[in-house]
């Protein structure tokens, strides 16, 4: 009882008794989640506006006589002539470790029915990206667990790597695999009590997606034990365009908290094409002038300011990082459309997924020729560099010569060898979804390819050979794999040990 009295007393004491000036306006027009308000002479850009009854808005257009605001939440209860107040606050979302394992909306409110979110800090949704003084170049890898990516298109912590491709080519799956692999690594380090390992937390932002797809993503994350290390921000297709427009910024603010506190985070924006569409809708309803494909003039700035917030900070500023994996959906493989070219030019590389490859059974359907990582190789571990250095070149040569493959017998021995090698590499890089491969195993397998251990294996049996080899190495040569993970470099004695293990395996399977 006394607690209750104290609580009431503190609430009353907290009330400001003096007169406070408030700035108000009147709703003149309301529709499509956008309100035009007369008055509000003191409103700031991006300021939260109080519409009463718990409905908030965001001032986006400050005009001569009116303020254009987007409504966050249900706008159906707002009427013409209603009073609106400024709050003096910018839009904020809760941040911190309390959000891990949770599914939240754009405003950071829980959607998963697991109770209120425990967070005592809030970050503004819009924030200026860290400047050049605070940054350093990437030098630590993000292990995606996807062999083709870790070997040929490596991603570093703090990098922005675009995942681009047509519908249903496995874009989301790449992101999910990365989250699952990092959750596995985080858990392994926790269990081993490894203090040096820097855990990578994930944030998955679903923009304009079907609720069923989002539910599926959450289910996959849960099944693979990745949800406790992940924050899911949802602005589904049925949510208003305004929340779809703000969702990536809210997710980014949550990621920035990890970066500012010396931790590493990974954020996946799924996808920015729908984000651009939502922003176009908001802009058109706000009557902003439209440009190419009816997108507003600042659609480039929309994505550049978002992606610039991903960074690797230097030691002086906490050594944290925020890695971004934006996803863009192309139409009929057209990467030269407006939004794809914008985002390609902003990011530090792209992973291009091809429909043709997908249906040929090459999954993940990564097009090696069109995919690049501009900065990631600096973050690749040395062992991987040693075994994967030549693979991209080998594959490129193979693609060039693939057209001749049908005349097989007419080719000289060297060309035939190149084609045979290429075919085996393509097979090796095929990987089922949600089954990331640890980097030490990737190194061992690629070392076997480079050192001709697969040359006598028929192409159609390469996958079986790889499975058996993986099983053999993980069950019987675990110490060797642990050594690769520990030493991170293939020195002559390690190479000898690998050679011995592979020879033993070949003898066993012969």
């Amino acid at each position: 009882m006394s607690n209750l009295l104290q609580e009431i007393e503190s609430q009353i004491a907290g009330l400001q008794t003096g007169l406070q000036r408030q700035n108000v306006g009147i709703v003149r027009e309301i529709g499509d989640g956008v309100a035009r308000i007369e008055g509000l002479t003191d409103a700031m850009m991006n300021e939260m506006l109080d519409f009463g009854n718990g409905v908030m808005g965001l001032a986006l257009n400050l005009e001569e006589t009116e303020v254009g605001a987007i409504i966050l939440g249900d706008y159906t209860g707002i009427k013409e002539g209603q009073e609106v107040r400024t709050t003096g606050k910018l839009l904020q979302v809760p941040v911190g470790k309390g959000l891990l394992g949770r599914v939240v909306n754009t405003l950071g409110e829980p959607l998963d029915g697991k109770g209120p979110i425990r967070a005592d800090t809030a970050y503004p949704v819009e924030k200026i990206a860290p400047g050049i003084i605070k940054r350093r170049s990437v030098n630590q890898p993000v292990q995606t667990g996807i062999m083709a990516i870790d070997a040929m298109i490596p991603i570093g912590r703090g990098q922005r790597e675009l995942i681009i491709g047509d519908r249903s080519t496995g874009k989301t799956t790449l992101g999910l695999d990365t989250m699952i692999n990092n959750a596995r690594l985080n858990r392994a380090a926790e269990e081993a009590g490894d203090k040096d390992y820097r855990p990578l937390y994930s944030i998955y932002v679903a923009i304009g997606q079907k609720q069923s797809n989002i539910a599926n993503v959450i289910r996959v994350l849960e099944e693979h034990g990745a949800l406790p290390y992940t924050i899911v921000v949802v602005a589904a297709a049925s949510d208003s365009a305004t929340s779809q427009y703000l969702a990536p910024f809210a997710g980014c603010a949550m990621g920035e908290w990890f970066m500012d506190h010396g931790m590493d985070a990974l954020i996946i924006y799924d996808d920015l094409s729908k984000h651009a569409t939502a922003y176009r809708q908001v802009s058109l309803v706000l009557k902003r002038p439209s440009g190419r494909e009816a997108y507003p003039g600042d659609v480039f700035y929309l994505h550049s300011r978002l992606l610039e917030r991903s960074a690797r900070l230097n030691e002086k500023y906490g050594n944290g990082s925020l890695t971004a994996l934006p996803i863009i959906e192309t139409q009929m493989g057209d990467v030269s459309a407006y939004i794809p070219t914008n985002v390609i030019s902003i990011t530090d590389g792209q992973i291009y997924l091809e429909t043709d490859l997908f249906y040929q059974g090459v999954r993940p359907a990564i097009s090696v020729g069109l995919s690049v990582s501009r900065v990631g190789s600096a973050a690749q571990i040395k062992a991987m560099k040693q075994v994967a250095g030549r693979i991209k070149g080998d594959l490129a040569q193979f693609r060039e010569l693939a057209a001749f493959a049908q005349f097989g017998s007419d080719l000289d021995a060297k060309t035939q060898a190149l084609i045979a090698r290429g075919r085996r590499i393509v097979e090796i890089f095929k990987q089922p979804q949600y089954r990331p491969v640890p980097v030490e195993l990737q190194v061992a397998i690629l070392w076997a390819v480079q050192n001709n251990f697969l040359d006598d294996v028929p192409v159609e049996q390469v996958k079986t050979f790889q499975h058996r080899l993986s099983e053999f190495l993980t069950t019987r040569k675990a110490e060797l794999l642990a050594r690769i993970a520990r030493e991170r470099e293939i020195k002559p004695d390690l190479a000898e040990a690998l050679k011995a293990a592979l020879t033993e395996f070949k003898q066993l399977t012969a």
Partner: protein
Amino acid sequence: MRISKQARRIAKELFTLCRVDGRLDEGRVRAVVGRLVNTRPRGYAGILHHFKRLVELDFARRAARVESAFPLPAELRQGVQTSLTRRYGAGLHFTFLEKPELLGGLRVQVGSDVYDGTIAGRLAALAARFQT
């Protein structure tokens, strides 16, 4: 009605011309309207409509609304007028209203600024605080 950009610009220019020392001069406003109605230049209807809106908004900016639960005595009214004029400058249009539902205290609105010192306002703030 749809008002062209040119009409808006002209109306804005005319509105600026009607200001003397930062305040709207009623004589000039009447003269402008009279001239527009008599000469009827191209797009005059649009110009007039936008001009009216600008004048309306200027009035709203200079309007001071004082609400109280009971009628205010003359000296208190004078006091409110003096202090508001000191803060916002001369040229305010005062309206005094009675609203018993305010229970007590004053609510003053000048343009889009609101000073709510009413008991009803404080009770509403307290209720909102308990809700959060």
